[in-house]
Structures are given as structure tokens and as C-alpha cells.
């Protein structure tokens, strides 16, 4: 019996230590996207905010579709994603208080250096997608209703191509995050649409490079929204608002602009423009 007592004591101690870790001070939960996390942006800018306000920011990084869904369930205080139409819908339906532009970067099309569809060096994303479809060259899609996925689908639509018909053929929907999709694209010599920040921070590039960039249609806007405290009374409205305000402030905007990898700026602050 003594051993049983010891086991129970150990269990109690373990659980107790967890409880202690739990009792951490002030924090907010931010539902955000894989691109902001994978690019390292949060690790770079959040310590400044926490040091200034004493508010810890806990980031859950999932696809934009899932992030909005989680926020709609009340599982977060702030939503920080990149799919403007879906964000406006979220606010209109009462899920969030108000949407603000925070920053932007752009999407790029990456592909193998062998370039089977001959699109390298282009500036026209729509033309490139048409060439990829015409050549039947492999294209790896997120296929996960994320912000990037929504963008990609809108580009195919603009190109007048029903890419879904080729699903399983040259059009391959991975149903996973940006990084996983890039790993797949590199593995199968496929083209892919990615946000520039994730690509710059991505380490397993293999023989892949950016083939199309600089098209105005590839603009990628990020927005921030406080989850509605009216709908979800447990939302930490004051601390969440403090984070939103900081992101939009001169200091927050400067922190975003200052974040670089290998001398390249990843995001461009554009609040209030």
C-alpha cells in the first residue's frame, strides 16, 4: 500500500505543478495563421508588447478558416488573419467588434527550377496559372480553406480555369498548412502559391525558387479584430483591445516593419492608411 500512496503523491505533485504553471498572470489568446507564426513574426514582436504591458500573448496558429471558426466559438480574444472578405463577414455576423488593417505582404508563386510550364520571371499570376494548367504541370494547393487557399481559388476563377476538375491529377490538394504544402511541392516538383513571409523563412526549399511575383493581384492584407465581448462575455476585452491598439500604434507598426530575415523585410505595416 505504501507504494500506492507514493504513486498517488507523485500524481498529486505532478498535477499541482501543472496548476502552478497554469496560474500564470495576465494573458490573452490570439487566433492567428500559420504564416505569421512560421515566419517568426510573433516571436520577434510579442516580447516588446509583453514587456510594456505585462500581458502575455498566447498564439494559436491555424489556417484562417479554422482561426475564424475558433474565434466564432469564443475560443480566443483577438483574431489576426488574412482574408478580408471572410473577416468582414465575421464582424458583420457579430463575432467581432471591428476590423482594422495591420500590415500586408504579397503572395508569390514558387516552382521548380526546371520550370515545366515556362512561367519563370513572369509578373502576371493569372497568365502563369493558365500556362501551368495548359502544361498540366503539378500544382500543390493548400486545399484547407485558409487565407492563402481562398486567394488561390479566386485566382483560378479569375483565370477561367476549373482546377478542381484536375484534382488528383496535376492539381494536388494537400489539405494542410503552408509549410506542409511547401514540403509537398518541393517533394513532387510542383508549383505552389505561398505568402512571401513563409517562403523567406522556409528552410526546405530544395531546388524551388520564386517564379512569379510583383502582380498587384497578389496583394496580401492582414487584419486584426477584437472578438466580441457582447457575444462572449469571457473575452478579455480590455487586454485584447490593448493588443489591437498596440499593433496599430506607431510602436507596433515600427516593430512589424523592423522584422527581417536575411536582410529582407517580411511584412509592411499599413494601419490607418
Amino acid at each position: 500500500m505504501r507504494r500506492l500512496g507514493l504513486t498517488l503523491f507523485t500524481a498529486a505533485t505532478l498535477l499541482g505543478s501543472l496548476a502552478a504553471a497554469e496560474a500564470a498572470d495576465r494573458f490573452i489568446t490570439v487566433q492567428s495563421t500559420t504564416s505569421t507564426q512560421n515566419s517568426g513574426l510573433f516571436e520577434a514582436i510579442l516580447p516588446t508588447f509583453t514587456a510594456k504591458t505585462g500581458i502575455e500573448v498566447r498564439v494559436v496558429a491555424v489556417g484562417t478558416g479554422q482561426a475564424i471558426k475558433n474565434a466564432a466559438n469564443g475560443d480566443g480574444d483577438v483574431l489576426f488573419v488574412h482574408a478580408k472578405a471572410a473577416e468582414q463577414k465575421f464582424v458583420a455576423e457579430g463575432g467581432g467588434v471591428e476590423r482594422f488593417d495591420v500590415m500586408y505582404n504579397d503572395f508569390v508563386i514558387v516552382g521548380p527550377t526546371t520550370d515545366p510550364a515556362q512561367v519563370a520571371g513572369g509578373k502576371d499570376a493569372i497568365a502563369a496559372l493558365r500556362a501551368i494548367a495548359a502544361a498540366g504541370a503539378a500544382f500543390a494547393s493548400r486545399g484547407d480553406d485558409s487565407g492563402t487557399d481562398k486567394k488561390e481559388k479566386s485566382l483560378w476563377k479569375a483565370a477561367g480555369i476549373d482546377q478542381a476538375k484536375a484534382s488528383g491529377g496535376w492539381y494536388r490538394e494537400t489539405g494542410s498548412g503552408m509549410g506542409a504544402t511547401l514540403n509537398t511541392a518541393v517533394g513532387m516538383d510542383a508549383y505552389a502559391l505561398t505568402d512571401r513571409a513563409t517562403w523567406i523563412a522556409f528552410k526546405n526549399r530544395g531546388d524551388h525558387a520564386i517564379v512569379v511575383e510583383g502582380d498587384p493581384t497578389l496583394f496580401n492584407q492582414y487584419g486584426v479584430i477584437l472578438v466580441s465581448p457582447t457575444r462572449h462575455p469571457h473575452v478579455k476585452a480590455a487586454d485584447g483591445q490593448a493588443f489591437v491598439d498596440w499593433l496599430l500604434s506607431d510602436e507596433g507598426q515600427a516593430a512589424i516593419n523592423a522584422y527581417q530575415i536575411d536582410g529582407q523585410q517580411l511584412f509592411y505595416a499599413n494601419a490607418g492608411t
Partner: protein
Amino acid sequence: MQDFGAAFGEAFRLVASLDPDLVEIVGLSLRVSVSAVLAAALIGLPLGAALAVARFPGRGVAMVALNSLMGLPPVVVGLLIYLALSRAGPLGPLGLLYTPWAMILAQMVLVVPIIAAVTRQTVEDLKDEYEEQLRVLGVGTAGMVATLLWDARFSLLTALLAGFGRAIAEVGAVIIVGGNIDHVTRVMTTAIALETSKGDLALALGLGLILLALAIGVNAAVMTLRRTAGHAAYG
């Protein structure tokens, strides 16, 4: 594939420098999985033993169900626990989502069937040997459950280890209910998933090697304990 060599290098660098983030992640992995296994044992051991000893209609169905539940996909368990703990779910007001508690709960659900099923088999084998003796001694069902569990205690360590293996290795459930939040709910498996998605395959594989070493360490420790305690008990 220079990634393999680089992975060993990364693993060695992280361990040798006692990287504080690594220590934190390993600590949380162990705390969550050990807690989940202990909690699951409190349910699974008596449940499995009771199934082995008791005779009731539908016992066969219960056994098939239990054995099948060993194959529960972690991502499904994660989703169910998410729906239950979400603010919009029935247990939402507890505010447990995205905490280690949610991760323990999810892993416990995954581990209970494994412990219960292995316990059921182990105790049933033992029962076939001792049942008559115990009946002659006038031991009731509850007493038999307790006696057989105690007698099988060293064999049942295997059930706990199987459960621990499942818990420490799964990623599908904890990444949904924990959220992989840095310094709060990031464990070994979710860190590996994150580094993979960043394309840092060497670091991801290095973390995998450390996880493997951890599992070997825990198993070796339990085996040693079992041998020493076994000698003490049986001479």
C-alpha cells in the same frame, strides 16, 4: 540526404547546451503524458480487471468495443475534446481549452482503452489459474478484482508502458486542444510538427531523436524498477 547527419548534430547541440526551450518542452511532455497515464490507470486497471472477472450479458460486445477503441484516431479524440471544451461547448465555462489540462484529458481518453484492454487480457489469464482457489477461499468478485490486479502488478506495467507510448507519441489530439502555444502547451510532438512545417527538417528530426531517447529512458527505468521490485517480492 545530409538531413540525417544534421539531425544528429541538432539533437546533440540541443541536449549538450541544455537548451532552455527544449528543457521546458520535454518537461511539459513528460508531465502531461505521465499525468494522463496515471489518471487513465485509475480508470483502466479496475475497468479491465472487472471485465475479466465479471460475467454479464453483453460482455463480448464490451470487449470488442474496448479492443476497437485502442485504435481511436487521436485527431478524432482531439476534435471531440475541442468541441466539449470550446467556449461554445458544454464544458466551455471551465476555460480549459488551450491548457495542459485539456491535453491530459485528451491523452487520457486515448490511453484508457489500451490500459483496460491489456489489463483485461492479463487478468483473465491469471484468473483461469487461480479462480477455483479464490472461490474456495470465499473471495467475492470485488475481492477477486483486487487480488488479481495486485498479483499481476508487474505484468500490468506493460499496459502502462503501452499507454505511455501512445500518449507521448501522439500529436493529433494535443495540437487541437492545446493549440501548440509557445511556453504554454508546446510539447515534443507539436514542436516537431511546427519545425517540419517551417521546413527545418534537421531540427524536427533532431527533436524526434530526443523524443525517442526519452521513451527509451522511461521504458528502461520502468524495466529496472520491475526487475528490482520483482526480485524483492518473489525472492
